[in-house]
Each structure stands twice: as C-alpha cells, then as structure tokens.
C-alpha cells in the first residue's frame, strides 16, 4: 500500500554532477522498455518483442499487434517469471497513449551467438532526439545465475565481453545521444559497456548486479571517468542489485508485491510499476533501500571478501545453486543444494560465516527469517541455525552421531519443528559438523561489508586518475630496474 509519507512522485529530470542526463527518455519509459524486452509469445509468436521479424517496426506497431490479439492472451497465465497476461496487457495499455515511446523504432534484434548462456538485445532508435537506445534483456532462466555469480571470480565475464563486442559492432556514429539500458543481467551488461566505452552518454541499469573488488581495482580509472553516466533504477526490495559493488548513482523505487512468487517477485521488471484509475503508469521513489537488503548486501560483501581467489569459483557456483533453489520456494531442494557434496565445503563456509555474523549483527536473523517465510520456506531452518550457534563445540564432537544430537535436543526441550526438520534432513548433519569446525576460525568483522568505490582504489591528481594497481606495477618494475642497475654497476 502506498503511503504519502513514504514516497515522493518522481520528476523526469535526472542529474549527474549537476548536469542533467541527456536522454530524451523518462524513467517510466525506460522501465516500460525493459518490461517489453521480456514479452514472449503474448497471444502468439508475434507477441515476442525481441524477435528479428519486428526489426524496422516501431514500439507502437508491436503494442498494436499484441493488443490486436489480446483475446488470445490468457489473463492468469505467467508469460515471463512472475508476470501474467493481465499484467502485460496493463503494460501495453499504458504504452498506447505515449506517442513518444510508440514512435521508437526497433532497428536491430540480436541473439547472442558466441556466449553459451544465450541472451537477447536490441538497438532502438528515438527519431525525435536522434537517440540510439541499446537494450539488454536479462534471461530469467536458472542459467542466468551462472553468469551473475561468475562476476565473483572472472574479470570481466564472458557475457559482459560479448555484449561489449556486439555493442562495438554497431554503427552508432550518426546518433546525437547513445543510451544503454537493461534489467538484471542486462543491467549489469549496460553498466559494463558504459564503463568500457566512452561513447555512451547515459546508462539506466534496472536491478542489475554490481562488480567484484577485482573488477573495481582493475578498471578504477575507467569507472571514475564514466560512473556519472550510470543511473541505477532499483526496486526497494530487489535482491539482485545487492550482489557485489555498485557503480553509479542509485535511486530506489517502491515495489509492488502481488504475492504469487513471494519475495522473488521483487526482482520482476514490473515490480515498481503502479497504475492509476485510467491505466496510466508511474513509478514512485522510495526514501531508502529495504533494510533487509541493506543487511544482506553488507553480509554478502564481507563474506565474498573472506574467500580466497582460488576458491571463489566453487563458492560462486554454490551461491548460484542455492539461489536458484531458493527461487523454487522448495525447502527440500534448498537443503539439498546446501548439503550436495559438490557444494558442501562452500556451503559450510557460507553458513559458518552467517552464523558468526549473526552473533555480531543479530538483526540479520530477522531479515533472513522474513525472506524465508515470504518465499514459503520452513523457518525451522533458523531453529537449526540457532542450535548450531549455541552448541558449536558440541556439534563438532557429536554431530556425526545424529541420534545423539536429536536426543540432546529433546532433553533441552528444543522446538519440535526443529527436531522434525532435522529428522527429515539427516544429510544436514555432516554439513553441520563442517560448519561447527569452520565457525571458530572466522572473524566476521575482519572484512568490510561496504561497497568498494573506484575512488578508493585510485589516486587522483589534477583530474587524472591512476589506479593503485597500476602504481603497484610501476613501483614493482622500478624496484626491479634499480636492483638490476645496482647489480650491473656493482
């Protein structure tokens, strides 16, 4: 429910360092374009927005075409994750009176041809302002998370590089303005391109994840140069944008939650869209990010920093696997993902870290409890967490004997749900022992949870930025050169 005190209606002008971003698109239009990217088979194959057959048509042509076949769109059917036919019709109706958006031409639709995870994107053209709009779709399939988490250990990722290669293959010289946008993984690609290619004028990343510490250090000078062009549109309770370090200005927006997907729905591209009585859409600025997400963001950052580079890939795969199973809302699948032999060591690291973190920052538990229950998970998981936290030494000693643990739990009048949960998931005991062993070696306050800023990794002299990484290399080679000189002269 919207409350007047919680929000202010947005204005259409956004600034970077006091200078308005020069795109002719409003935030609402950017959000609508990103919703269109997900349209698939609305009333038939012509209802797929990112189809090569739509090239050289306008957004208006597409909307008219979809509404022409509106009777074939099933209201209750989900046409993309979390978005039903009825919701897509609302989106189409809200575009219909917007002549500016309707006149935008779909110049080129691209299907990724090199990168294994697929992906679609489009080059759009706004003739009213001679503006090129390059838009990247997130994939929404489980496979999306493979790339989302690969940003933890790859700099840059294959998806990012391929998006840049395609972007640079486009002939953009004749446009006055170049704008890039995308939702989720598409938002991350848009930010990456803006950092790497100075020609981009504006970037609107919608719920896109950030970049690793290694990335920020490696590209600090490029980031400093281009970060003012990046505007992050973020749903207040979105959980993808919190991954890794943000780049650019952030604005949070109030989210709607229709309840079908529970917490997962906060990441849907229409989560921040509101309609008035006549179907006109708007988005509403939120005063701040959801506190749960702030807490999770900080914990994840400090956890990732605690992992050695050599094991980051394994941890990333575990995280992705857990998130994909968490999406499903199935407690058994989630437990399996944690206990799976391939993930067990990394899961133990994450859980041990979370438990130690919980001792230092107990508010985390409430955040996790709310997220789990909103997603339909059994919160008995948290009962187990509490037990391990309180009896970690005991668990390390007797955890391999599940029956004994269960007897002790009963003697201590532990919650019946926790006991039933553990009985059902005996595979958790090995994991719990591993967690208990790791717990005492972890100092959760050792690593900062704050986002790393490019400015922190570079030295700025007279507007010129030099990354500390480059300086380290220069100093290293200077020392080597001095040693060689001394050796030769000596």
């Amino acid at each position: 429910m919207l409350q007047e005190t919680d929000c202010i209606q947005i204005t259409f002008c956004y600034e970077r360092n006091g200078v308005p971003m020069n795109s002719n698109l409003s935030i609402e239009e950017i959000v609508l374009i990103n919703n269109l990217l997900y349209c698939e088979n609305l009333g038939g194959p012509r209802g797929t927005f990112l189809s090569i057959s739509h090239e050289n048509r306008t957004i208006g042509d597409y909307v008219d075409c979809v509404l022409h076949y509106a009777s074939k769109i099933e209201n209750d059917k989900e046409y993309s994750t979390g978005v039903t036919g009825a919701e897509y019709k609302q989106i189409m109706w809200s575009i219909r009176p917007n002549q500016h958006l309707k006149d935008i031409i779909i110049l080129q639709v691209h299907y990724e041809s090199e990168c294994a995870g697929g992906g679609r994107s489009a080059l759009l053209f706004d003739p009213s302002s001679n503006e090129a709009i390059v838009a990247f779709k997130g994939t929404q399939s489980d496979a999306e998370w493979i790339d989302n988490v690969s940003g933890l250990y790859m700099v840059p990722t294959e998806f990012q590089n391929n998006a840049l290669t395609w972007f640079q293959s486009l002939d953009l010289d004749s446009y006055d303005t170049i704008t890039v946008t995308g939702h989720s993984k598409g938002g991350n690609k848009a930010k990456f391109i803006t950092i790497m290619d100075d020609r981009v004028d504006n970037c609107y990343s919608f719920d896109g994840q950030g970049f690793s510490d290694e990335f920020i250090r490696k590209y600090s000078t490029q980031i400093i140069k281009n970060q003012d062009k990046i505007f992050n549109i973020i749903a207040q309770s979105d959980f993808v944008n919190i991954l890794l370090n943000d780049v650019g200005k952030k604005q949070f927006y109030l989210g709607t939650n229709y309840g079908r997907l529970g917490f997962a729905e906060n990441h849907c591209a229409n989560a921040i869209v509101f309609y008035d009585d006549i179907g006109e859409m708007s988005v509403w600025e939120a005063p701040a990010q959801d506190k749960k997400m702030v807490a999770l963001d900080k914990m994840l950052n400090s956890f990732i920093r605690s992992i050695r580079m050599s094991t980051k890939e394994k941890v990333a795969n575990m995280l992705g696997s857990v998130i994909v199973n968490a999406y499903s809302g199935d407690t058994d699948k989630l437990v399996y993902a944690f206990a799976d032999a391939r993930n067990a060591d990394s899961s133990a690291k994450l859980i041990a870290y979370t438990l130690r973190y919980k001792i230092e920052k107990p508010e985390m538990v409430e955040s996790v409890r709310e997220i789990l229950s909103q997603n339909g998970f059994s919160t008995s998981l948290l009962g187990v967490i509490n037990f391990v936290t309180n009896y970690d030494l005991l668990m390390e000693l007797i955890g391999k004997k599940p029956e004994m643990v269960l007897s002790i739990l009963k003697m201590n009048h532990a919650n019946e749900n926790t006991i039933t949960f553990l009985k059902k998931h005996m595979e958790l005991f090995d994991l719990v022992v591993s967690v208990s062993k790791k717990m005492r070696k972890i100092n959760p306050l050792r690593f900062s949870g704050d986002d790393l800023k490019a400015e922190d990794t570079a030295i700025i002299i007279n507007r010129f930025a030099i990354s500390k990484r480059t300086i380290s290399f220069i100093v290293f080679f200077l020392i080597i050169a001095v040693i060689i000189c001394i050796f030769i002269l000596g």
Partner: protein
Amino acid sequence: MELTTAEKKVLNGISFHTDEIEKGDLCPEDTVLLNEMRQVEHYLQEKYPSYTFEITGCEPKSGTTRTYSEWYFKCGEIERDSAFIAMSEETENGYAIRDAFFGQVIKEPIRQELERILQTNGFSPINIEVSFWDYLGKEFDEHLDANKVLKGELEAGNDFKIFLDDSKLTEKTTNR
C-alpha cells in the same frame, strides 16, 4: 563420458558443475541437457545436410515459464552476427524440435520473387525484408518449396516488409 570442447562450453554456460563437466562426470540433470543438445544438433544436420552447425548456447526452460528450451546455433556457411534459434520440447518419445533456420534457406528466392512482382507492376523497392514467425519441424527439409511458402500454401508465418520510395507514389497509392 566423452564431451567435445564445444559441448563443454555450452554446458558450462548453463550448469554450475564446472569440474564435473570438465571431467565428463556429469550429474543426471547435465546428462539430460547434453542429450538434448546432441539431439538438436543431430536434428539440424539431418534436416539441412548441405550446412554445418555449431550449437553455441542455450536458454534452458528451467526457471522460466516456457515449456521448451531455446538452443542458439551458428551455421558454418552463413556469416551472421546473430545466432539462429531452435526450440526443443520434451515429449513422451524424446524431444519435439523446431527451428527458424528454414527462413535463411528460402528468404533469398522469396525476396527475388517479390522484387520481380513489384517491378513488373512498376514499383522499384528500396529494400525487401523477409522473415517468418513460425518455427518448422522435421516435416520439412532444406528443399522446402519457397514458392509454396510465398503463396501461403505452406504456413510459415510470413512477414514481408517492402520499403518503397514514397516520393514516387501518388496520393492514391499511398493509402493502405
């Protein structure tokens, strides 16, 4: 299990099990995906024997609302930035596979025929774009009759865009 480098690359793009894929020690879910990928590749080679294909990616149905997976592929004989797409849907007997590559095979003869018709009627098109909405399955091969598709005798979801120089059109003929 023996996997080619290309197969490993595609699987790595859609599965978290990097080490197991490298060793060829696939889990049941990845084995299913590999089997599906091989069937799509086999289907393409069998349907279009004059062409060579490489599957480059996949958007699996898992985690989406789709009932089919989309397989992205390149053709050795055609230079194109964008991938082609095939859809595979699980059936009782395996997979029902359909693809959009047929459009590449018949679009040039259709474009030429449209150009001929237009010129015969006094129109000189600036450009003609030929595309199709439908994905066709194994009931058609690479000898699909372009003329029958053009005339609508074979339903392929024809979508032809004809670009004319409007300065040469009279007011009457510009009315649609």
